[in-house]
């Protein structure tokens, strides 16, 4: 075992619970629940992280009261039916030496009553800026009812063999709404002074402690700072933390960042936001209290974790996306194989990107997610006969397919016509704030080097060279090529963005970017042009520019950057003609014609064309499949998952 991480790998006592190391898998939405109950798949998802060495799992929030049905797959923790499902889940974690806490929550005003068909409860009648719905101010009978529901839910947690309970009082919770003057306008004993605003937390904690007894841990997750005018500041949070410690019911404090309502992008920072961006908050809290403190926020590798502990910023590090991407984050650290960690990209495309759309959690780089009970890297489906597999194209799809086919025992040859693997990813990673996308290729390259795959770089495959390998199966992963811009009619100053990035052609001063995709192809190129000092106009048919970035939480930051960098964003229009320096567009709603003059260059972010010619040549001669862009030009997650899903069936 490595000696490089004396603190990260050392045990810690949290109240009555001993954690074997300092890495926790903190609470996050998974949408894996079924029928309002924890599912077996959710248990297996947590089990895999415990098996991979995480000391502590904190579950996804569970709802303590029927007035809270904030999202469809929220677990109803107030019915005793949950207990057997809890037992299954906790047992799965305990068998690997991990601990597991249950996070109790009520989302308060941060929800949509369309699901429950009941009014949302909160400290006061407020309108949540994100959901736009008005809440009902709780009367005292309702406060008493809420406290009792917390108590009962904690009792079920105890019966379900959890090692502890965590209260969410952070980004989306009724406790925060009581704590924050932004949402608590009460004039009774639950509003006004900080002590008053803290009262409900204290009363719930007392009730919960009475239900769970002294041998379970109790923690609270606070928001470090609300970043909203009139909201909680870090100084307030430090004061709240002192009250948490003083009341004597709690064993630890977990600090999260931002709130769903304001600065949602800080809750799960993307690669736009520096790693370990929230450490200063945990540090401030830790200075003020003696309770163990958790830090979270884009802690990507074990070295960052060790450093935080060494600097006294925190006692525990929350690694969520890092362990979504690689459940064996801790195990690999312990074995001194950190370079083999399938490191998170912080791209948010498949984790929060899916969960935000009410879909099951996923990961661009980890296709095992959601099926941990069936398959794992060390538990892939057995093969009946080793086959010779030829993969054409070493982009993410081809690399993933080759790695998995090899792992299962097939003999794999991977052809790549260029001198580097990665397909289009290196190009995408060259754009502003997109560098970490390139880590996906580093991760795949590491895995490839670890395999027995024969990699033939600088080798363009054709029918003859492929058939000469006498393959049982051929996988076409040749990617895609930029689609020509039809409306340009061959005018040389008009480029598909991908072509322009490859050619690095000189541009004039005034550049118009036409976005027909709404994702980073347009948005990141525009930012690059602005950074180059160009005068940029960007237009699209959508209601707002770069709208696909909403899914990854980058949209607001990007829009802010564009405002600061002076890019002109023009929504709701479609280009209908390009004639030299003049561009003609039409307003989608009024039908008005808009003319742009003096445009030196036009870049168009648009679709790609699959390179599937080899498939057509080989179809009928040999078993042949297409994956990734060669099947349909889509995104990185589609490429990797296509490769994986095919390779596990061969």
């Amino acid at each position, binding site marked *: 075992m490595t000696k490089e991480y004396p603190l990260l790998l050392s045990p810690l006592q949290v109240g009555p619970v001993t954690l074997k190391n300092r890495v926790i898998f903190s609470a996050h939405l998974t949408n894996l629940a079924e*029928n309002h109950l924890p599912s077996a798949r959710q248990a297996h998802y947590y089990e895999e992280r415990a098996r991979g060495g995480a000391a502590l799992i904190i579950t996804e929030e569970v709802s303590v009261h029927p007035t809270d049905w904030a*999202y*469809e797959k929220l677990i109803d923790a107030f019915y005793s039916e949950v207990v057997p499902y809890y037992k299954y889940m906790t047992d799965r974690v305990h068998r690997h030496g991990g601990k597991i806490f249950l996070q109790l929550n009520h989302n308060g005003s941060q929800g*949509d*009553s*369309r*699901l429950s*068909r*009941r*009014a*949302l409860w909160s400290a006061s*009648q407020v*309108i949540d800026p994100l959901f*736009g*719905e*008005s*809440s*009902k*101010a709780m*009367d005292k009978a309702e406060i008493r009812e809420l406290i009792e529901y917390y108590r009962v839910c904690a009792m079920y947690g105890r019966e379900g063999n959890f090692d502890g309970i965590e209260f969410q009082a952070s980004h989306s919770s009724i406790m925060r709404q009581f704590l924050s003057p932004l949402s608590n306008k009460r004039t009774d004993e639950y509003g006004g002074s900080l002590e008053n605003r803290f009262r409900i937390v204290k009363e719930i904690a007392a009730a919960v402690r009475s239900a769970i007894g002294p041998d379970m841990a109790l923690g609270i997750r606070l928001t470090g700072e609300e970043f909203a005018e009139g909201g909680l500041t870090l100084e307030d949070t430090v004061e709240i933390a002192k009250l948490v410690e003083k009341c004597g019911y709690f064993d630890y404090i977990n600090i999260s960042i931002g709130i769903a309502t304001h600065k949602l992008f800080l809750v799960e920072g993307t690669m736009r936001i520096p790693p370990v961006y929230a450490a200063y908050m945990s540090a401030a809290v830790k200075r003020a209290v003696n309770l163990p403190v958790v830090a979270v926020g884009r802690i990507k590798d074990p070295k960052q974790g060790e450093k935080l502990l060494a600097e006294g910023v925190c006692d525990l590090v929350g690694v969520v996306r890092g362990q979504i991407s690689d459940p064996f984050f801790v195990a690999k650290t312990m074995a001194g194989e950190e370079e083999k960690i399938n490191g998170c990209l912080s791209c948010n495309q498949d984790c929060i990107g*899916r969960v935000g*759309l*009410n*879909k099951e959690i996923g990961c661009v780089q980890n296709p095992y997610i959601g099926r941990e009970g069936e398959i794992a890297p060390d538990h892939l489906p057995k093969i009946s006969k080793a086959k010779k597999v030829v993969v054409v194209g070493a982009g993410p799809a081809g690399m993933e397919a080759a790695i998995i086919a090899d792992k299962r025992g097939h003999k794999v040859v991977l052809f790549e016509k260029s001198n580097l693997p990665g397909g289009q990813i290196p190009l995408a990673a060259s754009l502003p704030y997109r560098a970490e996308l390139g880590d996906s290729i580093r991760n795949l390259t590491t895995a490839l080097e670890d395999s027995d795959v024969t990699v033939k770089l600088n080798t363009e495959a054709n029918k003859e060279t492929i058939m000469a390998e006498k393959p049982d199966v051929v996988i076409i992963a040749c990617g895609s090529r930029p*689609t020509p811009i039809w409306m340009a009619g061959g005018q040389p100053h008009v480029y598909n963005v991908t072509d322009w990035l490859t050619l690095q052609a000189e541009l004039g001063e005034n550049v118009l970017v036409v976005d*027909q*995709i*709404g*994702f980073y192809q347009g948005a990141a190129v525009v930012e690059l042009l602005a950074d180059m000092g160009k005068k940029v106009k960007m237009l699209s*048919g959508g*209601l*707002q520019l770069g709208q*696909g970035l909403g899914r990854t939480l980058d*949209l607001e930051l990007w*829009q*802010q950057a564009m*405002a*600061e960098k002076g890019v002109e964003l023009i*929504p*709701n229009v479609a280009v209908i003609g390009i004639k030299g320096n003049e561009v003609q567009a039409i*307003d*989608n*709603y*009024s*039908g*008005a014609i808009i003319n742009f003059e003096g445009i030196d260059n036009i870049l168009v972010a648009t*679709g*790609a*064309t*699959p390179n599937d010619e080899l498939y057509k040549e080989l179809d009928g001669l040999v078993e042949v499949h297409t994956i990734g862009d060669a*099947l*349909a*030009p*889509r995104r990185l997650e*589609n490429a990797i*998952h296509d490769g994986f*899903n095919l390779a596990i069936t061969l």
Partner: protein
Amino acid sequence: MAYCQNIKNTLLISGKELKNRLVFGPHRTNFPSKHLPEARRIAYYAERAKGGVGMLIMEGSMVIKGDYPYDYSLNIHEEGALTAYSQVVNVLEKYNTVLVGQLNHFGIQGDSIISRKPLWGASPVPEVNSNEMPHVMGIKEIKELQAGFQKGAALLVKAGFDGVEINVGQNSLLRQFISPLTNQRIDEYGGDLANRVKLTIDVLQLVRKEVGDNILGLRLCGDEYAPWGGLDAEAWAEVAKYITDRVKIDYIAVETGSLYSGHLTMASIRQPEDYAVASAKTIAEAVSIPVIAGGALCTPALVDEVLGSNIALADITRALIADPEWPVKVCQGKPENIRPCIRCREGCNVTANTNPLIGCAVNPIVGLEHKQKRAKAFKAKNIAVAGGGPAGLTAALTLAERGHNVTLYEQRDYLGGNWAIAANFPGQESFGKIIEYLDTRAVARGVHIELNQALNAAVAMTYDAVVIATGSTPPAPLFNIGDGVNIAAVEEIVSGNIPEGKNALVWDELGEWRAVDAAKALVNKGYQVLLANQEAYLASLLVKKGEFSYWYQELSKLPITTKTQCNVEYAGKDKVRLTNKFTGQKKVLPGVDLVVRVTINNPNQILYNELLGEKPVYLAGDAETPRGFMWAVASGYRVGQEI
């Protein structure tokens, strides 16, 4: 002629008799299930069949694995499908309603996020909202698709359905093959009409083999509303004729809209009730089989009039969601008893990512048909209801139905509360119908109504329980307002109660229709209008509801200035100062005489606070918290069930 005789006429289709000319059409419901019909969904359909509708077409079933357009789509290829689909037939059989199953593939209008498989498309054309590039179907996939339709049809027939409908309507891969907007193929499936329709014809011929003498229906798009390259009603009529000349089809159902015009598929009150009838008539002229017209039909007299034309059947889906007994009530000559659909789309539009269950603003039990209603009250109580808006009226009616003695107090001289004011808005007159209905039903149930009388605490204390449905009041603007500037609520403006002036600021925090309505009323009165909000775009709530395009079209006709992503610092007669939400940069605009803040109201809880702890009190509607009409009715119903 007898009342609504056209509706009451029977019709024989392929040997099956429809007892009237009414159809409950296919629509998404989001009943949570593992992709098969189950008890809740069947109870929902049974309620409509029981209400007397002539033909019921079930929500479309997907025929191919990998086509998961939404979480709770029905999949006919799922294991156990035969048993599940047979169960629908078993339950509905006794109601003598002709039952049709629909088969579909969403193509590029699907969503690959669920299946993680590429979408299938005719050509490399992405859907306009997702911008996702599909996999262009090769011959293998085309054959697979045909086989999927055929197998699905065989299963429906085996399960005992009276017929099978093939979807070539708004959300369908087959339409995407027929429309030049989405089909750019150069093989035998692309190019001229014969080639583009080939796939549909092949599918229909295979399906006919399985269907035999049962009904084979075809759902067609009536107009793509995309004049630059899409097909209009004339073109679809040609398609209809081409198909019916080659395959024996028993009926054609016409719906409208395409990728670019979702708001015209199940249009809101902003479109006329019969907006989709004209295109159905054009198609009916071209063919000699029964044609179903749909859209937003819901008023008996209009439906009867439409059925007097070349239209054989009327799809009144939303009217039947609002009142399953619509057919029975019309046939008995009692249309005044119908709970009217107000075409608001609040409950029946279930396309949001959150997967809301189908509901209805005027009918709070929609989606909950499988649950037993609360029985009569154990002991009749004397109950006062404060407030005669939708919440108060619904609570009063429900309580009276359960046997309580109810008195309703309304301080105004009319019923309906803020909803009655909304019904004054141009084009929203039909909103008033539901108040009329609730009023009539409540009186019939013995509710005693006191107008011009606000309930006070002293009187309230004489009752056993009090329902507080006292509504809500518009709040004042939050920013600094200069001297002499008028402040008005949006209700006043739209009702025509507009002060004199030249320049107005409409500050929109809602993203609903109201901002445009207010702007329109102000422009008509000669105002220069500045419409501003904090968000990235206007009408954000309508965007969530998929209904914004029409709003933007209406907005684009108004000569007004708009500003997004800003905060108002000051609005005075001398100037308006806005700040950019991101950069904080200030922008100074000409001053205004009038400020209209469009936002959510404040609840009226004075009486509630007076009675709290003194008397059993129940909050309902906006007084609980302002959540709009649908929740006012829902909470009124809830309280009515509780006491």
